[in-house]
């Protein structure tokens, strides 16, 4: 028993603080993502108990309302606890639990459709990898960590861009039907007030093409210089939520957390008076 505190202390001491800071930054972003729509999830959860529906495609346990409630709660609790954890073992275990719960949410009948969980799961996978590398010197780990965040972000943008390579998106029809006809949000209200009704399909077409091109550009974040990639990703992700739907911050916040990793600056060690030049 007496060895334990020592082991924990030495473990904590040998962790590079900047590595831990980066991991906690992304976990905090995951927590915000999960909590952002808490009220919405609670309302939908209540509706599910009023309108129980079984879909035979899903295994029994992945149809249960209790499963999705417990998974969401444990995902939030584990992400929160990681922020206060110091030892690498605890951080690893909690990150693994967090990832497992996010995977459950990504394949559950009542939550599979919310890409919040898929984006959080990829972010949590990066955190799990980081939790195994906490003892590596920051200087050698950071370039790999930042590049992996940009690769994950590129993958997510490519997934969106490829699925739009179909005539309905390229000619703007899909986005016109979803957003331009009657979506009550400031951007679309503004566009409807600026353009005549008959020209809206044309505006939708150019908007759709801009979206597809922007997504393809962001699909190459991994090839951009580190800070440029991070800034481009943050601007793009914030833009998506600010111009389409504030609820989308649940999807993009964890990704913004990943993008911010590339902007990290190593903390300068405090200079001792003895080493300060006279």
């Amino acid at each position, binding site marked *: 028993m007496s060895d334990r505190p020592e082991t924990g202390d030495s473990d904590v001491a040998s962790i590079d603080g900047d590595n831990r800071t980066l991991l906690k930054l992304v976990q905090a972003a995951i927590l915000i993502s999960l909590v952002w729509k808490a009220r919405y999830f609670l309302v939908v959860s209540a509706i599910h108990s009023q309108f129980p529906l079984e879909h035979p*495609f899903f295994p029994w346990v992945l149809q249960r309302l209790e499963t999705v409630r417990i998974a969401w709660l444990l995902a939030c609790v584990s992400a929160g606890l990681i922020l206060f954890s110091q030892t690498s073992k605890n951080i690893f275990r909690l990150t693994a639990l967090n990832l497992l719960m996010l995977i459950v949410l990504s394949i559950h009948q009542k939550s599979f459709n919310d890409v919040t969980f*898929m984006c959080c799961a990829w972010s949590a996978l990066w955190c799990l990898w980081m939790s195994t590398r906490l003892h590596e010197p920051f200087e050698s780990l950071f370039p790999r960590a930042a590049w992996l965040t940009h690769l994950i972000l590129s993958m997510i943008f490519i997934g969106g861009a490829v*699925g739009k390579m179909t005539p309905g998106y390229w000619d703007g029809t899909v986005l016109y039907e979803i957003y331009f006809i009657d979506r009550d949000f400031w951007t679309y209200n503004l566009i409807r007030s600026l353009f005549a009704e008959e020209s809206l399909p044309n505006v939708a077409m150019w908007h759709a093409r801009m979206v597809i091109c922007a997504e393809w550009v962001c699909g190459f974040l991994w090839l951009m210089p580190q800070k440029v990639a991070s800034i481009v990703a943050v601007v793009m992700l914030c833009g998506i939520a600010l111009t389409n739907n504030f609820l989308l911050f649940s999807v993009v916040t964890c990704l913004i957390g990943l993008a911010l990793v590339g902007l990290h600056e190593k903390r300068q060690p405090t200079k001792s008076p003895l080493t300060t030049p006279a």
Partner: protein
Amino acid sequence: MLRSTKFIPDAFAKRDLLGLGLLAMIGGTILWSMTIVFSPTMRQMALERFHLAGNSFPLWAVHQAVPAMYNMENRIQFTNRLIGDKPFDPADESYIKRTLNHYPARFITFGNNHPVCFSNQPQGTFEIRSVFGDTELVTRWEITPQSQHTNLDADKKPDKTAGSTGGPSGSVPRTMIVRQISKKWNVTKPGVGHE
């Protein structure tokens, strides 16, 4: 460019096998997502994924790792009537037609639409039509209240009192069952649009 070429040698030097594994997973996922442009099989799998109409749940679960935000052209139709293979009637007061960004099956699996769809009758017919490139998948589903005896009994008549699902009468919610009734593929030739 330099960053991308340094990752693998650095990871090997540091014995970072998990990092290399993560790189392989991300690379595999990117390739998987891009194959829908070139491979009819992968395109069909992606469409089935959105409809929850594939044969393998484990494969679908793995496929969920592939990002698919705002993918495909997805349109749905819904009515409280049990119409089988017959066409939807837009004049029907319970008829709903929408375009959805992704995961169109959510219209019935996710609860936010349930009060609109099932408050009056806990049953209905639901159709998803998704298009990617030259391939279209149309699936039709029937939602019926779980019967004490057999689900088929519920198909015969719309039961307005059955399982009022927490409505004004306050009776115990009755589980609704989703059942696929048809699945059709349409592949168009170059230069010829869908019907």
